[in-house]
């Protein structure tokens, strides 16, 4: 059964630096780092101490709210440093990798014969639960709740996003095993969506409902798909997993090894050869981008340009990320930049901005804000890039003045920060939409559960 998802509202941001479809293996980095900050809303309780040796798949810490929720080391090696911030908050756990990797051996399982409880415990033990996330609130799924359905988006529409068809090719067995296991976790349906013209390995998977996705970004965002297929109401929970994380779960089921390596797209105009590499979660950025990056006034982003996190070259790949983007910093002045005709930047208006003339053009955008932060003034523009059945500006304002009743009524349960990435991109007032949404969701989670 297939149900198509078609959206019209949205915007494809076309940038230079699409990754070419060839993959090189990056040699093992010296040091890896796991950042608990990648797991939003989790307060880490450390299991390891500085100086101990861990195997790949061995737990480093658990969540304060649920001690079954383990977080595993992606590599085997020695814990060399615990970096702490204000109030002794753990910011990163650094592990010096062994030259030959050792894996903690888990049982291999036939997913089809497992019960829901067995799947849960299996994923807990191997540290694979963090791959399962939930809405509302866009955090790691609460295992005590029952999701009404589970979503997997195998279509990435974000700017320069890794081509999921390419990086998943040949992983049918892993994906099938993982989806069979994951589908045990819900009484409802597992929805898998693929691009309109895709030859995704996921289109041959059994036991799921397949959807084809048409339309501009954010059609690939799982939030858009949830809202079109099975929107979240108050009191309901939906879980979602990314396909690249399903591969890790699948490999665990088939081989008993926790192998957090994934294909990562190096994208953006500051890469000499935008392409794919294989890297392990938490890898050192410098090692991953070695001999490829032009690091001269460059913004390096773990993730995509809309929702990714800024990292330095000595930083580390995010736990969930399968993309590193490098674009020029825009820290320069531009004479009469506020009024002169603009040809080299993207705009959704036509106010002497001419990106509408050439919709196929690839732009080389930098990080300049193109203006200063202001109060909300312009109306009606967000709606054109926002496909959810929600009033975006009204919701943002409710999130800003923290009226919980309104946040709930206007659709706060249905959104995640990434849904507001496009509205933030086009915002004339340069408001930090994703930050507003993130803080509002945290408040809702605290106050409303």
């Amino acid at each position, binding site marked *: 059964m297939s149900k198509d998802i078609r959206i019209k509202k949205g915007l494809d941001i076309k940038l230079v630096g699409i990754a070419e479809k060839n993959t090189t293996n990056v040699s093992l980095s010296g040091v890896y780092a796991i950042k608990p900050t990648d797991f939003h809303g989790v307060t880490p309780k450390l299991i390891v101490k500085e100086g101990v040796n861990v195997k790949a798949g061995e737990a480093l810490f658990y969540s304060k709210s649920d001690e079954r929720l383990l977080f595993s080391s992606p590599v085997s090696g020695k814990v060399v440093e615990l970096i702490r911030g204000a109030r002794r908050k753990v910011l990163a756990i650094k592990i010096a990798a062994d030259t030959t990797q050792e894996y903690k051996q888990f049982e291999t399982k036939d997913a089809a014969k497992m019960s829901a409880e067995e799947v849960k415990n299996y994923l807990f033990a191997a540290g694979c639960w963090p791959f399962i996330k939930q809405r509302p609130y866009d955090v790691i799924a609460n295992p005590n709740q029952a999701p009404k359905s589970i979503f997997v988006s195998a279509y990435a529409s974000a700017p320069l996003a890794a081509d999921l068809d390419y990086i998943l090719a040949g992983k049918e067995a892993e994906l099938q095993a993982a989806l069979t296991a994951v589908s045990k976790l819900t009484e409802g349906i597992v929805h898998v969506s693929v691009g309109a013209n895709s030859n995704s390995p996921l289109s041959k998977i059994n036991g799921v409902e397949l959807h084809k996705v048409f339309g501009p970004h954010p059609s690939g965002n799982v939030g858009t798909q949830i809202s079109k297929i099975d929107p979240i109401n108050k009191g309901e929970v939906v879980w979602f997993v990314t396909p690249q994380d399903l591969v890790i779960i699948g490999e665990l089921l088939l081989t008993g090894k926790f192998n957090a390596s994934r294909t990562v797209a190096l994208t953006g105009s500051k890469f000499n050869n935008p392409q794919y590499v294989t890297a392990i979660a938490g890898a050192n950025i410098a090692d991953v981008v070695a001999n490829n990056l032009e690091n001269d006034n460059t913004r390096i982003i773990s993730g995509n340009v809309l929702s990714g996190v800024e990292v330095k070259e000595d930083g580390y790949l995010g736990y969930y990320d399968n993309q590193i983007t490098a674009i020029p910093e825009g820290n320069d002045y531009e*004479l009469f930049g506020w009024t002169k005709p603009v040809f080299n930047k993207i705009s959704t208006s036509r106010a002497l901005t001419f990106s509408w003339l050439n919709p196929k053009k690839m732009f080389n955008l930098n990080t300049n804000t193109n203006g200063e932060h202001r109060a909300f003034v312009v109306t009606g523009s967000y709606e054109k890039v926002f496909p959810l059945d929600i009033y975006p500006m009204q919701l943002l304002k409710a999130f800003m003045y923290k009226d919980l009743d309104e946040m709930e009524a206007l659709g706060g349960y249905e959104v995640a920060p990434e849904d507001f990435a496009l509205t933030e991109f086009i*915002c004339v007032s340069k408001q930090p939409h994703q930050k507003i949404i993130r803080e509002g969701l945290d408040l809702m989670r605290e106050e409303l559960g």
Partner: protein
Amino acid sequence: MGLKENLHNLKEKYRGTKMAPAFNAIHTFLYLPNEVTHGGTHIKAADDLKRTMNTVILALVPCLIFGMFNAGYQHYAAIDGSLRADVLANFFTFDNLWIGIIKVLPLVIISYGVGLGVEFIFAIIKGHEVEEGYLVTGMLVPLIVPVDTPLWMLAVAVVFGVIIGKEVFGGTGMNILNPALTIRAFLFFAYPTWMSGDKVWVQGAVERANEIAAGSTADAISGETILGSYAQNQDVIYSTFDKFMGFIPGSVGETSTFLILLGAAFLIFTKIGSWRIILSTFIGAAAMGLIFNQIVAADIITESSKFYGLMNTVWWEHLMIGGLAFGAVYMATDPVTASQTNKGKWIYGFLIGFFSIMIRVFNPAYPEGVFLAILLMNVFAPTIDHYVVQGNVNNRLKRAKVKTA
């Protein structure tokens, strides 16, 4: 480049001081700032508020230039009616422009000078950046006042409008009423004898009337607007062409429906102005005009009534005369004070048009209603939005109920 570096150094030097907002306001007009994104999206679209505001100003410039010529043309044509026989030959003359330069430009300068002065002072006191809202307001104000408005009145009104209309609410983006219309309303209610009547619309008419009162024998200059003539059930001497192109007395920038429609086309094309509001305002006005025409046609209102003149005005003529077109295109579309939802914009615009014509016909003191109608709907815009948004909320609740049932 030397200038760029020097200004950058100055900016760093003034950072955090009281003068920083004032300096930055000027600096950012020269250079797009070197600010980069942090957190959130790493790239941003090209548009900012300055560009948005500037687009509206560009759309207003033709009206301003036309208004300057028209100021002179109406002055000379009032003295020598024969000029009206050949409008095109007698309109774009330097004499006309000169009147515009000495009468209209000072209005623009006072409007911007006083208004931006107030904005700068508030920015410095409150320590925020100078916001761009006044760029458009400052341009709108001289275009919606009669040409003979004394400069001191305008200055007082601008101070009132910017402070009470905008700054007390928290500045650009926070105001409930359109600041330009607040200024216009202040002028109207504070100086009613000056702002209404049949003198103030043509340059020189007031002075001449005073001279006559003092014993001069010169001919009086009539400064009557079309609406004034209709309201007094007098005949109107202007052709439809004159009315559409704008060769008629009226506030400085409001007369040329043709140029206003060009501006509207530009605003809609650039996606800055809301076509929903513009279109629905015209529809609303046409609807009310048609209703009045029907009332007259049904002989409910006869020629003896004082409302007859304006009620009998053909509905499409209502769209061209007075400030309706200008209000619909440039004032009603102000995104801060208009309805913010697309559905709400239709309702908001329609009611503005509807009430404009209603007030125009029934207002005994002053035959124009556009600015009052827009201000009225400014107040009701949040209410309209509330019900539109509530529809979305109710759908969400319904969805949840169907699920549980």
